[in-house]
């Protein structure tokens, strides 16, 4: 995947998080791709994670079967992009956008 395509996926994930969680006053530029999504960083909580899991699974046809996989996938936007790419469907989604 080219850097441009990866950037496209990262931006899509930011938009998905903002839209799914209806984050007011947060723009894609406010989310640092390397920072934690939960606790510190963006400050999401475990209930937000439920909605994100469902949204990511639907959008990218990946499965997040348990909390441990979820913790790794949701460590940061970069981690999430890697997870989506690793599972394959992210490549297609990114291509469609890019």
């Amino acid at each position, binding site marked *: 995947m080219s850097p441009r395509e990866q950037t496209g996926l990262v931006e899509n994930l930011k938009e998905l998080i903002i839209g799914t969680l209806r984050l007011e006053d947060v723009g894609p530029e406010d989310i640092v791709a390397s920072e934690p999504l939960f606790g510190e960083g963006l400050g999401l909580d475990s*209930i937000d994670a*439920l*909605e994100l899991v*469902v949204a990511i*699974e*639907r959008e990218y046809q990946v499965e997040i079967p348990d909390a441990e996989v979820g913790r790794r996938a949701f460590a940061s936007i970069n981690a999430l992009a890697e997870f989506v790419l690793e599972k394959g469907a992210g490549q297609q989604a990114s291509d469609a956008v890019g």
Partner: protein
Amino acid sequence: MRFKDKIVLITGGIRGIGAALSKSFLQEGAHVVVTYSQDQDQARRFQKELGPGGSNTTVHQADASDFDAMKALFDNTLEKFGRLDILVNNAGIRRDNLVMFMSESEWHDVLRVNLQGTFVCCKLALKPMIGQRWGRMINIVSPSGITGRQGQANYAAAKGGVTSFTKSLAREVAKIGITVNAVSPGVIETDMTRSLPEQTLAELKQAIPMGHFGRPEDVSGAVLFLASEGAYYITGQVVSVDGGLT
């Protein structure tokens, strides 16, 4: 028509309270997916009773506590309708005995169907309901689970467990537009209560301030209310439908 085109899944929905619930949701415009565990003759009778309304009903044989079987049913329902709006966990069994004489299987069977079955179905309903940001889960519990009852330690433990499970899950999903409540029917005239000893029934009747047993339809009123739009601000609660018993 409060439930027009809503998709409702009811476990243990072909007899007693479950059958009354199925009929009530159908009358209000819902499509009802019903499970039963064993009695195919009763399933046929139930479908016959529905008459033309039966076209909006899907009846499946499935053990509510069997994760794989229920997952197949949920997947099938979501494929067919694209959504699941309301889940009623009604499937339940009793294996009454005094604790000293209670076998391990009497204990495990009751916990499995009543408690694990509720966990399995709620878990499977979560993803579709979270995706919709709307859902209603209603678990059928029992006064035994609140006050305890001799000879029903297994059933009371299971229903008490479902009550606290209900309250916990309600907190987990409250922000997402999903409510989780319990309805606790008192003594309702069904096959399950008719199997109680006559003396127990007489004692129970005496303990009910209204002086008579309830009908399955009485339970439907509470369940349909909790499933309706109007009940959106009620979650984690137990509504007793028991003529004042508890």
